[in-house]
């Protein structure tokens, strides 16, 4: 009984320490200048490694520049006109993106995002998957990714038969941008 009580006291002590410790880390993050932007990607330059993000609406909207580097996570979400949440920190007075996440409402559940470079690797490795071009058929005809098939958005139900029978097959959809 005494041992149990001692145990509780010890647990309480550890918990208090931990909570205090956690709180400390949080304020520490703020000191380091990690913050969050929510906005729409207006432009992206791979050469300059720079994103332009529009934040706020209407008259109050403004465009902020955010740099990225090889450590930035989630760059596959940085498509133009796409809404993202960006964690960033200040380095030498400039914003550096640490990670990008999409605003969740836009992505249906069960669907994940893949980057252009990862698709390129899959094509080069001749992996088994189905690549689907969702744009109007005329766009597909003018230029499409290697191995892609054409199923325009309005015809998804009618052309369901073009999809592979095996429901485990990786399907990758693309169109003319994020909207």
């Amino acid at each position, binding site marked *: 009984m005494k041992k149990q009580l001692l145990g509780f006291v010890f647990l309480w002590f550890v918990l208090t320490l931990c909570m205090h410790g956690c709180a400390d880390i949080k304020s520490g993050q703020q000191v380091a200048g990690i913050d969050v932007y929510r906005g729409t990607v207006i432009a992206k330059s791979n050469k300059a490694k720079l994103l332009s993000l529009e934040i706020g609406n209407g008259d109050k909207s403004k465009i902020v520049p955010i740099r990225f580097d090889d450590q930035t996570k989630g760059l596959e979400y940085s498509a*133009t006109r796409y809404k993202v949440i960006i964690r960033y920190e200040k380095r030498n007075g400039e914003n550096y993106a640490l990670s990008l996440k999409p605003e969740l409402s836009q992505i249906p559940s069960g669907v994940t995002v893949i980057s252009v470079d990862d698709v390129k690797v899959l094509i080069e490795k001749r992996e088994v998957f189905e690549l689907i071009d969702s744009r109007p058929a005329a766009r597909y005809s003018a230029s499409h990714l290697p191995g892609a098939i054409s199923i325009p958005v309005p015809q998804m139900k009618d052309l369901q038969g073009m999809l592979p029978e095996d429901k485990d097959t990786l399907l990758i*959809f693309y169109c003319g941008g994020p909207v």
Partner: protein
Amino acid sequence: MCLQSAGQAVLFGYENVRVMLAGEPAWMEAKYPTYAGFGFVCQGNRVLIDLRSSMKSEKSRITRSFSIPFASLENTIDTIPLKASVVLYSDNEEETIAALQMFYDRGYKKLSLVEGGYSGWRRLGGKLDSGPVVTDVQWKKTLLEGEVGLKEFNAALKDPTAAIILDVRTNDEAISGKLRQSYHIPLDDLCCRLDEFFATIENMSREQKIYIHCTTGIRAEMAYYELKYKGYNPYYLVADVKCKGNECEIEQ
């Protein structure tokens, strides 16, 4: 919009569904190769370039192609209109890819290859020409089915009786700037709010011309198909549209 298709695939029961969100424009931006479809190579409004030697080209080439041997491309590339859809082929894959990079580096945006090059086309039984080669590249922009030219679009801005201007960008985009003369409904709302929306427009009829725009033309084209399907008389504008306040810069 492909998110909609991907969501649909999940409903069909597919377990492993992904979306390349950045889309075809980002693929082109990364200067990766794309292919042209059979119909586009054969009949499309494209500049088709045979990179093989003029001797080979004279003997047999894909129908309506221009002969620009790879070795002389560097000197002649500037004679090819920057806005044209350029399709390349050869019998040498390395040269094809090098030529593609050259076009990308010069700022050409509409580029694609013939899958499998010259022999790939022969295997498909595609149409061939022979005889003296054509080296003088000719190309004229033509409107696709349902496309409205910039001239007609601008005329409708001045004369509202010519056509209704329909803006299908998102609410956020329209808030930050929109053409004074335009009616706005987001592409996503066309499915369900269209009739109710058109009921608010005076003299609206099924015959009324509707000119649709977005920021590039891609969503406008999608809206075109949807309105056409619903029995209206739409046209879409392929142009970059940037708006601030009541003014928009329109560039083709």
